[in-house]
Every structure is written in structure tokens, then in C-alpha cells.
């Protein structure tokens, strides 16, 4: 057990003085505890993050992590159907949960003096979930309707699924978090409980409490409620099948009459933030901003929307919090009368020019300022800070990595950005997707 203040962990003056106050502990059963103090309002966010997500599912049962997330709101040995959320609401709180590739997380937002009750209930459902056949059948219909709403009714989402599947040749990141429909239809009690029994345990979980709390009190409550739950000795090592060398560019055309505006996206396999080695990812953050962050001042924006009339919209994006290799993406929506072919060629010319000329020094400095400011603005949202820690700690990073990240971002140089671009923007590791309403678009 140790206690760590952010202000001590950082050495650079301005950002260190602004950093949030974070205290960490580890319970004897292996559960990690992170406390973020913010006494501006009498509110607390209580979160439990499991280091298991969609990418940890066995083959053939895609969507089981997310389906289980839904089932966790049913009943336990002591709480009746729906009683968990009813109790949160009866205390003026709100609750929800979310599933990603690398984590599944549950949270409540309540008055700070209700923290103990939240822990009591969350600890209860970590070990005592009860499922009925009726819940299984009804909730499976609900997740299928969720898939209908988020994916089947959204041509852009269907296109993204195909792109990810083509991007990842071997890794589970190529399978949708919500699941492939034909596998979701077969999910049942046995699969849900198998995933629950193996993954829902204190030694696979991180407790994050953020808000108007004292760290010692959180520790006492955590010991009382989570402490008695035994560790699960069989929690599997988090090894997912890794990507082989990607050596062939992939190209897709996704056709759907519901597409109103043809567009193209490209995704490249890219390194993620690694513990103790986040510099390359920091450079990729700049690269995304420089290429396509602002429609007015980025390379894509300037070349495709201002100096020419090739695009009506363009963007580049990168998210570095991921346990395994992630992606670097870009999108161009051509102006009316501009073909996808011409738009893609123009996009590639912008990239080539950037590689030849390097980043604009003024833009580099402006981004540095904006990233520093974003740390100040981020402190206004304590739930956002809690999510930042939860996502990082379930994706292989440490509290020290999270706290070092703003300074690592400040230290990125133009050379770092170019080196990262050289490595990542390799078409052999890319997928380019054209999203169109019909084939006639291609012959225009």
C-alpha cells in the first residue's frame, strides 16, 4: 500500500501545480483503489472498472462482455430485479455502465455521503449475481435492439465495422464490441456466467472514487465492502492474439442507399501509449492535430477546404489509450462534383507534402499551448478525470503514466512528429474505405 500525491510525482512547475490530487492504494485481495479529490461540490463519482472487455472474450461469443454488462443490472442474492438502480435513484443518484475493448466499467453519481451504500451494492454484484432464463431472453432482445439502433440503422457504423474487421488481421479489436449479430443471437446463460465467474473479481478490478471525499475514508469503506471478496486465482493473463506484420494495403467499398454523402476514411495500424514509453503516442497526438485537427489551420483543412475546393469536411484522429496496437484515422468528405478518387489523391498529396516539409513551427507551438490549456479545462470535469484514470489503468498504464502524460505532450518536437509519421503512415498497414450510396457515384 502506498500513497502518492500528484504534486510530488511531477517536476515541471506550471502543470504540476494544476494537477489533480490523486491517492492510490491496493487492497489485500489485489483490488486497486484510486481516489481523486475535488471538494468543489458535495458529489462523488464511484466507479468499478474491470480489466476485461470485448477483446477478452472467447472466440464465437462476440458481445458477451457487453451483454453481461446489461445483465449486471438484474438481480443478486440480496437485491431484487432492478433494485440496484432503484436504490441509486432513491438516493438521488444516477448510474450507468459502459463496455469497451479493454474494460467494462460501472458507475454511480451520488451525494458524497452515500458512497458506502454504493460500494455495498457494487461489491454485492461483483460476486452474487443471479440470472433467470427470462432475463436472458428479454435482455438479449434489448441488446439486439441496441445493435439495431447504433449499428444496423447507421450506415456509417456498418462501414466502420467492415473497416475494423479489415484493419485487424488477427486481433480481437477487429470484432465489434456490441458483437456480430449472428453471434449475439446465440448468447445465453452459460456464456454470460462463464465470463462473469472468470473476470469479475477484486484482483481484476480497479475502484475509482472521485469528488468530495477524503482518501482515508474511501480506503476504510473499500476495505469494509470490497475487502472481504476473495481474489479469483484463475483470472487469465491478458494476452490477446497479436497482429502479424501487415504487408498489404486493403481497400473497401461499402455501398448503402441510406448514405447521403459519399466519403472516404483511412485507418492505419498505430502504436498505443505504453507504460513508461508514451513518447511515440504523444507525437501521434500532434500528428493527428497537425494533419486534421482544425478545419481552418490543419494541413487537410488548409489544402482541401481553403486553398482548393476539394472537400466539404476533413479530419484526422488518434486515441492512444489502448492495451494493444490501436489505429490512426482520417476522413475526407469531397465537395459536390469531386470524385472519391480525386479526393483521395489530394489527401495523399497533403500527407506527402507534410512528410517533405515537416510541421509548421507556429502550429506546433499553438498546439502546445492548447494541450496545456486542455489540462486546465479538464479539471472542471471530475467525472472526466475519473474516466481518464479508469481507461488508462485498464489499458496497461499506471497512475504515474497518466500524470506524466501532460508533460510528455509538452516535450514533443517536430522531429518526433515526423519520425512517428514515417513509421505509422505506411499504406501496407492501412485500410481505405469508400462509403457510397450506389455504384453510379463511382462512374461520375
Amino acid at each position, binding site marked *: 500500500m502506498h500513497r502518492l500525491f500528484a504534486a510530488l510525482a511531477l517536476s515541471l512547475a506550471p502543470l504540476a501545480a494544476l494537477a489533480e490530487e490523486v491517492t492510490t492504494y491496493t487492497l489485500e485481495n489485489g483490488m486497486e483503489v484510486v481516489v481523486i479529490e475535488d471538494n468543489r*461540490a458535495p458529489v462523488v463519482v464511484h466507479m468499478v472498472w474491470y480489466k476485461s472487455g470485448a477483446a477478452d472474450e472467447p472466440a464465437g461469443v462476440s458481445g458477451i462482455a457487453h451483454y453481461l454488462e446489461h445483465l449486471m443490472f438484474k438481480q443478486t442474492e440480496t437485491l431484487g430485479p432492478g433494485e440496484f438502480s*432503484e436504490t441509486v435513484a432513491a438516493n*438521488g443518484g444516477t448510474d450507468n455502465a459502459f463496455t469497451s475493448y479493454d474494460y467494462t466499467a460501472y458507475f454511480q453519481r451520488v451525494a458524497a455521503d452515500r458512497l458506502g451504500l454504493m460500494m455495498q451494492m457494487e461489491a454485492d454484484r461483483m460476486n452474487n449475481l443471479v440470472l433467470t432464463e427470462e432475463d436472458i431472453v428479454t435482455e438479449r432482445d434489448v441488446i439486439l435492439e441496441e445493435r439495431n*439502433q447504433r449499428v444496423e440503422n447507421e450506415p456509417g457504423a456498418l462501414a466502420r465495422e467492415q473497416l475494423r474487421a479489415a484493419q485487424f488481421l488477427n486481433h480481437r479489436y477487429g470484432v465489434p464490441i456490441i458483437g456480430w449479430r449472428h453471434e449475439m443471437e446465440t448468447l445465453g446463460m452459460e456464456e454470460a456466467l462463464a465470463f462473469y465467474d472468470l473476470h469479475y473479481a477484486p484482483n481484476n478490478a480497479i475502484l475509482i472514487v472521485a469528488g468530495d471525499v477524503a482518501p482515508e475514508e474511501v480506503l476504510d469503506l473499500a476495505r469494509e465492502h470490497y475487502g472481504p471478496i476473495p481474489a479469483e486465482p484463475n483470472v487469465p493473463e491478458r494476452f490477446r492474439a497479436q497482429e502479424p506484420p501487415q504487408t498489404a494495403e486493403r481497400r473497401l467499398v461499402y455501398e448503402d442507399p441510406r448514405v447521403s454523402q459519399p466519403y472516404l476514411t483511412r485507418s492505419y495500424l498505430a502504436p498505443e501509449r505504453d507504460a513508461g514509453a508514451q513518447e511515440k503516442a504523444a507525437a501521434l497526438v500532434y500528428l493527428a492535430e497537425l494533419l486534421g485537427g482544425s478545419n481552418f489551420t490543419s494541413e487537410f483543412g488548409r489544402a482541401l477546404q481553403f486553398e482548393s475546393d476539394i472537400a466539404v469536411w476533413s479530419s484526422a484522429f488518434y486515441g492512444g489509450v489502448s492495451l494493444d496496437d490501436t489505429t490512426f484515422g482520417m476522413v475526407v468528405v469531397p465537395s459536390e462534383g469531386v470524385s472519391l478518387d480525386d479526393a483521395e489523391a489530394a489527401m495523399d498529396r497533403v500527407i506527402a507534402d507534410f512528410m517533405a516539409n515537416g510541421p509548421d513551427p507556429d502550429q506546433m507551438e499553438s498546439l502546445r*499551448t492548447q494541450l496545456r490549456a486542455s489540462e486546465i479545462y479538464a479539471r472542471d470535469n471530475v467525472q472526466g478525470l475519473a474516466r481518464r484514470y479508469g481507461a488508462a489503468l485498464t489499458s496497461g498504464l499506471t497512475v504515474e503514466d497518466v500524470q506524466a502524460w501532460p508533460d510528455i505532450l509538452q516535450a514533443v518536437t517536430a522531429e518526433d512528429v515526423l519520425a512517428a509519421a514515417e513509421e505509422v503512415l505506411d499504406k501496407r498497414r492501412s485500410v481505405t474505405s469508400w462509403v457510397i450510396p450506389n455504384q453510379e457515384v463511382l462512374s461520375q
Partner: protein
Amino acid sequence: MIRLALAALLALWATLAAAEVEIEEVTSPGGIDAWLVETREIPFVALEVRIRGGANLDLPGKRGATNLMVALLEEGAGDMDAQAFQTAREALAASYDFDVYDDSFALSVQALTENRDAAMALLRQALIEPRFDQDAIDRVRAQVIAGIRSEANDPNDIANAAFDAAAFGDHPYGSDLDGTIESVTALTRDDIVEAHARVLTRDRIHVGAVGDITADELGALLDKLFAGLPAEGPTLPERAEFALQGGISVIDYDTPQSVALFGHTGMARDDPDFFAAFILNEILGGSGLGSRLMTEVREERGLTYGVYSYLLPRDHAELYLGSVASANDRIAEAIEVIRDEWRRLAEEGVTAEELQDAKTFLTGAYPLRFDGNGRIASILVGMQMIDLPVDYIATRNANVEAVTLEEINRVAAELLRPDALHFTVVGKPEGLETTTN
């Protein structure tokens, strides 16, 4: 996610919240009123500005002018073209978010203490001296038209547009504030300049400010920001009459899941029964509790991922609306269950236990909304937009507690009219046809 977050809907009710925040009423030397919470923990200020009027002030035949004008405010001002303006803003790491709604123009600002004066001077130029360069107009017009095209293919947007058109006809509420491809294509620079003069006026400004700033500093800042805008704006539109009859409209669209928007008339925000109606809706279809609609349509039958209802008191009409989405072969059943629940609640009312649970939730949840400078500033300006006094915060929970079972069930019988509910359904729904009750 177990439930879809409904930030937009919740924002309506944020105005009812309260907590231990100390609000200072500020009047600038130039006469602009603002509400301020001074809090110095984080070195920035969040500013929320609303000007009543918004897209309702579009002139006949110029639908979309206000929207296009507002989108152009960040596209160059004074001697700076769009790129120069944005370069200056980015160097200050300030954010200016301009938005437009039917009833109002909205501006959300975040600025660091270290360069606040420069950030506000730049913002002032955008508000007072926007350039509206022709190349910017054409570029942003193309983006707006791309958005209109995309809405024409989105089932939810199709449903909204059809519902509003049938409900409100020629009133501005009857059409999308984006305008149509034809109306937006025809807009000239003169139309944009005129929209700017009509919509950004000083007589209808409301301001909420939270953060690292004193009352004196805020007063001076507001005078600098808004001096130079016209003193008065044009007359606001007439009341909008809701013309939609009970029934079902089916709009054929080839997609696997049908979406339905439903509703009838609602209740004005200043109606003495509003608190009762507000609690009633929380029980029927609110997102905080396990509502009756969620229980019956989702938990019991698995017919949807989400079903919600909400009161929508607008400036010129009051609506009671809801939404649901279900696979084409299940939407008919979902609609039947919703109508049955609407009827059951109108006829039988809520139970004493339901009323108590809703009160407990609503009164307990209210202080939780006051965390964060940006969120508090939004609440402050929202309260002003619906004419609530500063001390409303202290009485709000007592008003919720005061609603009796008799009261809420009388309101249920008056407000909920199952036969007047109109469902606009977009998709390939099985077993549903366009009907009028």
C-alpha cells in the same frame, strides 16, 4: 452502455436544480444583467450567453439565414479572414461555441485567466464585426447543405421533420432551422448581414458566468463584448398552434429498425401545475428512474433499447413528446404498449409510492447537477431564460415535495390524452398504417 445518455433532455431540467452555490446578480455599467458565481479554484472562466429569438427570427422565404449567419461568426472578423481568426483563437486556447436554436442564439465561452482580455477582445470582434466574406459564405453553405442531405436520410430526422411540419405548418416551429437546400442556396450576403442585425441584439441578452472573475471584471467585460450591437431586436413570432390529431403516420424508409416520435400538447413552464406535470413525466417516461415506459416496453418485453417521454415547454408552444425505436416487426407492439401506458396513467393515476420515489429521486439529484463551472453557468443562464428568480433555487425542492397525490392524478387525467397521441413512424413497420383517430 446500459442506457443511452440523454444529455439534451436532461439539460431542460437542469434549470430546476439547486445547491450550495452563491449567485451574485451583476449589472454592468452599460446595463447588461448577468448572474455570477465567483470561484477561483481553476484559472479560467466559463461564460454562457443566450439571446432570445434565434431561428424564429428568420424572415419569410429566408429559412436557414440565422443558422448560416451563426455558423459564419467563427469565419473571420475585423481585419482577419477565417484562418487568421482561428489561428488567433487557437493561440489563446480559448473556445467560443456559437449555436442557434428555434428560440435563442447561444454562445458558450471558456477562457483562461492568463489571457482573458485578449480572448474577449477577439470574441468581441466575432460578435460585432463579423466579415461574412463571400468565400466563407459559400464554403459554410456547402457544409450546411451536406448536413441537410444527411438529415434527409436519417430516420430520426425524417420523423422530427414530418412531425413538426404536420404540427406547426408555416410557423417557424414547422420547419427545420437549417432551412432547405433551395432556401439555403438562395441566401445572399445581404440576408446574412440582416440576420445578424436581427438576432444579435442587446435587449434580450442573458448571461451566466462561473469561475475566476470578479463582479467588476465581469461587468466591464460584458460591456466590451456587446457594446455596438443593436439596442433592440424585432418582434418575436406569434404563438404556434398545435394542429396534429391523434393517430399514426407511417413514412416508408428502408431500414431494419423503425423509429417513432410521438406526442401531443404539453404544459407551459409557468403553469401552476408544472411541478406536478414534471413529476408525472418522471414516473411515466423520465430517464432517471425505472420509468413505467422503460419497465413495460424494455424490461418486460425487450422491445427496445430505450423509450423516453419529456415535457417540452418552448417559448411559443408547449409539447409533450416521446421517442422509441424497435425492429420493423416489433414496433407495432411497442406503440400499443406505450398508448396503453399513457391511458392507464391518465385513468388510474400514480400510486403514493411512485410519487414518493420520484420526489426522493428529484430532490436528492438536484444538488448533484451543480458541479463544474461550465455546467453551473449553463444552469444560471437557463434559469434566466425561463424567468426564474435567483431565490428559486432555495424553494425548488419544497415545491417538488408540496405536490400531492390528488394534484398529480388530477394533472395526469388532464394532461395525458392517449387518443390525441400522434405517432410518426419511419421505417418498414409491419402491421402499421397511417390512421387518424
